[in-house]
């Protein structure tokens, strides 16, 4: 693994002035999208890769942010890393509805000059892809050499290959699914209820931090595997013994509370609500009466699907369903199930098999 870092990376902003219609029927009067780029665009402009972020991610993919925090995929994006910035021009953007600079619930609604908050219109993966295509045009890219993402990011990569078959050569869909299961929607619903039930939700001067923290605690459990939690915490106690109270006693409680609290300080509850809805609504096969293979008929991108053995939020079976639809549609598809104890979070962590599969797949063969 390389220690090469990209150092401090500048955040840029793309402003779309025209109105932008959403799948929900609502319209945004223009939008701002923040993004970062890593590596250089070559002369042929055929080395651009879009990395799509997941639920709580953003455009800070690699390098260091202004407050010296490492990007969420810094272990895998950089010089000589799986996504090698010596070879590729990599773009990471913050999705619409986000809370890290792109137009979202914290932005001012031009119609009434107050922040959108809960009135920010619902967006979909398809809307995101459409907005990312405007960014592509803005950057002067004829097409993406690859679109890549894990989890909700993988769903965007998949949507890209369906909606813009001529504008993407390869996709890598990691730890994702073609649609959410009832269990997945159920987890999202509890997360939403935690936020909506917070008395500070929609209050004028307070934030629903307790609810958002709870939502994150729940989410966090589903991102780890049973084994990983046993390994990390077991039944370890903070003070070595029980004290018959509802205070923090077990290490795992302490960890979850910390995760919930720190998350609620850096993330927006409206964005979280929105993102869970985007996940729940995702179902590209809807346009073809639920027939995924038919939906994929138009795809021309070479596709690599990666799943992780201990991921139960988006289990390998969900990726296999997707792979089978690609096979039925007679598409160029490869699928790899990587052994990992890290659950859904494994997609964020480099490993030899994972890195080299991506590196090899991205290699130009023509």
């Amino acid at each position, binding site marked *: 693994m390389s220690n090469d870092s990209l150092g401090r990376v500048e955040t840029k902003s793309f402003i779309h002035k025209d109105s932008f219609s959403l799948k929900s029927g609502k319209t945004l009067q223009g939008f701002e999208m923040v993004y970062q780029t890593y590596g250089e665009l070559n002369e042929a402009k055929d080395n651009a890769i879009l990395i799509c972020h997941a639920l709580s991610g953003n455009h800070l993919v690699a390098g260091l942010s202004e407050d010296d925090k490492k990007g969420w995929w810094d272990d895998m994006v950089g010089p000589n890393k799986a996504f090698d910035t010596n070879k590729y021009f990599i773009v990471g953007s913050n999705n619409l509805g986000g809370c890290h600079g792109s137009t979202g619930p914290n932005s001012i609604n031009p119609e009434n000059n107050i922040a959108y908050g809960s009135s920010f219109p619902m967006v979909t993966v398809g809307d995101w892809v459409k907005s990312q295509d405007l960014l592509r045009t803005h950057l002067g890219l004829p097409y993406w050499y690859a679109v890549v993402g894990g989890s909700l990011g993988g769903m965007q990569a998949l949507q890209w290959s369906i909606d813009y078959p001529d504008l993407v050569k390869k996709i890598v869909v990691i730890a994702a699914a073609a649609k959410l299961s009832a269990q997945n929607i159920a987890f999202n619903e509890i997360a939403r209820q935690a936020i909506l039930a917070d008395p500070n939700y929609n209050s004028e001067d307070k934030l629903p931090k307790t609810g958002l923290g709870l939502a994150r605690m729940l989410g966090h459990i589903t991102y780890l595997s049973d084994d990983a939690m046993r390994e990390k915490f077991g039944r370890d106690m903070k003070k070595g013994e029980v004290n018959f109270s509802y205070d923090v006693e077990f290490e795992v409680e302490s960890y979850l509370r910390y995760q919930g609290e720190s998350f609620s300080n850096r993330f927006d509850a409206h964005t979280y609500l929105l993102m869970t809805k985007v996940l729940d609504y995702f179902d590209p096969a809807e346009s073809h009466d639920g027939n995924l293979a038919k939906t994929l008929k138009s795809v021309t991108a070479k596709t690599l699907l990666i799943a992780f053995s201990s991921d139960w939020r988006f289990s390998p079976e969900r990726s296999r369903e997707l*792979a089978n639809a690609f096979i039925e549609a007679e598409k160029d*598809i*490869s*699928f790899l199930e990587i052994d990992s104890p890290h659950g859904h979070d494994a997609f964020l962590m480099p490993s030899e098999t994972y890195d080299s*599969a991506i590196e090899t*797949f991205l290699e130009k063969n023509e």
Partner: protein
Amino acid sequence: MNKLIGNFIQSNARVLDLGCGDGSLLAFLKKNNQVKGLGLEIDHQKIQKCLQKDVSVIDQDIDSGLSNFQDQSFDAVIMSQSIQALRKPEVALEEIIRIGKEAIISIPNFANWRCRLQLIFGGTMPVSSALPHDWYSTPNIHLCSLKDFEKLCIDHGADILDRQLLSFDGEEQSFMKVAPNLLTEIALYRVKARN
């Protein structure tokens, strides 16, 4: 061997290679027969090599079933010297001829004279170039002879369209026709589902 298999494959065919290893055969067929290939493999190092060769590959264990493949969805399904390593070769054969309009299957011949001699005079389980493993570490848990395989085909609804008799390095040897079940080291079959 790749060339012999290639002779059985139409150009532009859709080909499924079960147990595709490092993807050499599919890469060869892609180059020479312009096939649209897909491989199945479980060894991640070999999958890596497939990706290096630009061969599409699915991480899937044949023993856990092939029900994810549609009927007659491939022009040819290839199983090269691995049917004897499966838990249920008879189920695999039925699946192969269901999925493929044709199937190309090669087997190491356990009734080859060298194997017979080793067993009769050496009193040990045969080890040869075609079957290089010791009895305790061999992946080949369902070894068979040409006669055995041909009976399997008859019993499980497969018609044999072609048979080639080869040495372990994949060379065609016409002398083997004299006594195929005794002389052949590897047999290559082209089969399809009986109508």
